[in-house]
Every structure is written in structure tokens, then in C-alpha cells.
């Protein structure tokens, strides 16, 4: 059964933007300013135990984890808060500024067309180290073989989920395995979720943060468990 084509109009006002953040400092401030320039959607920042806590301003809703739990857990906190406060969809963005807010209207447009899950996939770029490019491509093929769904960039965290897709895709990964787990679950429920992806430019910010080779290997092992469970 496909739940995508709902009969009621999909309102853009009921979308919240969720930004998990840990020690992002001025990058987060710049990102929120850029988001506000591109849209007036509510922004929920989840401060995941930053050493210097994020300062609350009127431009966003701040949720604070007392300790660092990881990106996956912070995304879940933001989503739980948004859906329990009337949101019908959420857009996840990384707090370091690697996701360009100018793509937000594309998410909203595709959501209004009836998609439950919209993924922004980064185009391959020479700015990204070769090992990351190849690793990402390998992961896409591996997940496709295991779960029967091909997403060109499974590690991109720039995504929109509506409430029904969130309920199906809800993840256990607390840290960087979240994106891969979401795609694995998407493969399991691909008949129930109307999903789409669109290309975005790669913005490569920091080689010391984000997904490491250890996270990638762990996610590959976990994927066998996700397949069996």
C-alpha cells in the first residue's frame, strides 16, 4: 500500500527544520541566519551536549541534551518534539553548514507533491577525498544488494521525512549510523513509502568531523543485523 498521495493538502507551515549540533559554534549561527533567509519555517536546534552550550535566541527553538548522545539521538529528539507539537514533516540539516539552505524550497515542493521521504544526495565532487567518494559509492551498492533500494548518497543527512515515514523509518542508531540505518529501513518499507532524491552540490567542511572509517565499518556490520531483525 502506498501512503504517499494523501487527500488533504500538504501545508508547508507544518514542516519543521531540525538541526542537531555539537560544538559547531559560529557555523551554527551562520547556518540559522541562512536558513531564515530562505524560509520562515520553524527551526529546532538540538544541542547535543556542546562544551560551550548553544545560546538561545528568538529565531529558533532550542532543545539541550545534558550529555552528548550522538547525531542519531539528537535527530530523534528534534523529531519527537516537532511531531508532538503539530509538525507533519521534518527536514534534517547538519549543523556544520554543509547543507545549503537554498535547497529547502525543493524539499517543500516535493513534499507538497506527495512524497513522504525526500533525500538530497550530494553530487560527486573533486573537493571530497577519493576514499570518501569510493566508500560512499560502495556503501550505496552494498545497501542496494542487501535491501533492494539504491540511493546515490546514503550518508547525506539532508532529508525530509513526514510523520508516517518517520514512524516506519525510526532508527536505533545513536551516532553516525543513523543515515545508513534510515536507508536500510527505507529498503524494508519501500512499498509503503513514496520517496525521491534530488542532487545537491557537495560542500566539504571538515575532514576531522562527521563519519569516520570506523563509523562506516560499524554501519556495514550493523546492516547485517538490520537485515536480520
Amino acid at each position, binding site marked *: 500500500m502506498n501512503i504517499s498521495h494523501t487527500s488533504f493538502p500538504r501545508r508547508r507551515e507544518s514542516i519543521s527544520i531540525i538541526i542537531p549540533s555539537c560544538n559547531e559554534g559560529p557555523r551554527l549561527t551562520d547556518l540559522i541566519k541562512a536558513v531564515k533567509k530562505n524560509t520562515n519555517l520553524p527551526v529546532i536546534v538540538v544541542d547535543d551536549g556542546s562544551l560551550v552550550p548553544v545560546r538561545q535566541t528568538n529565531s529558533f527553538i*532550542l532543545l539541550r*541534551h*545534558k*550529555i552528548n548522545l550522538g547525531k542519531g*539521538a539528537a535527530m530523534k*529528539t528534534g523529531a*519527537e518534539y516537532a511531531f508532538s507539537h503539530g509538525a507533519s514533516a521534518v527536514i534534517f540539516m547538519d549543523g556544520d553548514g554543509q547543507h545549503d539552505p537554498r535547497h529547502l524550497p525543493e524539499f517543500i515542493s516535493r513534499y507538497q507533491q506527495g512524497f513522504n521521504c525526500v533525500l538530497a544526495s550530494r553530487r560527486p565532487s573533486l573537493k571530497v577525498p577519493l576514499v570518501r567518494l569510493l566508500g560512499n559509492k560502495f556503501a550505496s551498492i552494498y545497501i542496494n544488494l542487501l535491501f533492494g533500494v539504491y540511493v546515490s548518497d546514503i550518508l547525506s543527512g539532508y532529508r525530509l521525512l513526514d510523520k508516517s515515514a518517520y514512524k516506519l523509518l525510526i532508527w536505533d542508531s545513536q551516532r553516525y549510523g543513523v543515515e545508513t540505518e534510515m536507508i536500510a529501513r527505507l529498503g524494508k518499507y519501500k512499498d509503503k513509502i513514496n520517496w525521491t532524491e534530488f542532487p545537491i552540490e557537495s560542500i566539504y567542511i571538515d575532514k576531522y568531523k562527521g563519519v569516520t572509517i570506523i563509523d562506516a565499518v560499524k554501519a556495514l556490520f550493523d546492516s547485517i543485523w538490520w537485515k536480520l531483525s
Partner: protein
Amino acid sequence: MVEAFLGIQIVASSFSMLMLFLAFTQFKRKNIGSAEFSFWTFCWISVIGFAFFPRVLDPIVGGKFVARALDAVMLVAFIILSYLGFQNHIGVKSLQREIETLVREMAIKEKKRK
């Protein structure tokens, strides 16, 4: 009868003494109870005993499935370690989930209070 004083006996007894010391310090810090401390003391003293007097295991081993007595000790140790590893894994996972839920609830409740 004490076997020839081999390297394995030195290693086994040194390690067991260290583990006995760690069990004792954890007992004194009240991280483990007296029953658990007694269990570990028994285990590590047994390891020292088996290292020096492996022949006491001959009736059990009996040449049926392992070649040497110390191999049987290693096998049992491996089984116990696997069990403890699994138990630790389950315990840590459960704690992680509980902490995650707690931290999330605190974050949302704190927001509602403001």
C-alpha cells in the same frame, strides 16, 4: 605433583594475582558484593591451582576431547569470557537506551517549562 616451572605457569599465576587484587579493590570500593568477590576469588585461585597442578584435571579431561589439561582450562575460560562479553554488551546497550530516553525526556521537559 608440581609440573616443571614453565612460562605459562608464571603468566597464569601473575595474571591471576593481578585479577585477585583488582577483585579485592573493587570489593573494598563496594562495586561488587561479598558473594561476587568470593566467586572471583575462587575462580582465580583455581586458575593458579590448575596452572601448577594440571594433573588434577586428568580425570575430567581423560583424553576425550582435549589433548592437555591446560587446553581444557583455556576452553572453559573462553566460554566464560564469551558469556561475560555478551552479558556486558546487553547491559551496556540497555543502559545506553535508558540514558538516551532520559536525556531526551529532560530536554523536552525543560523546553516545556520555559
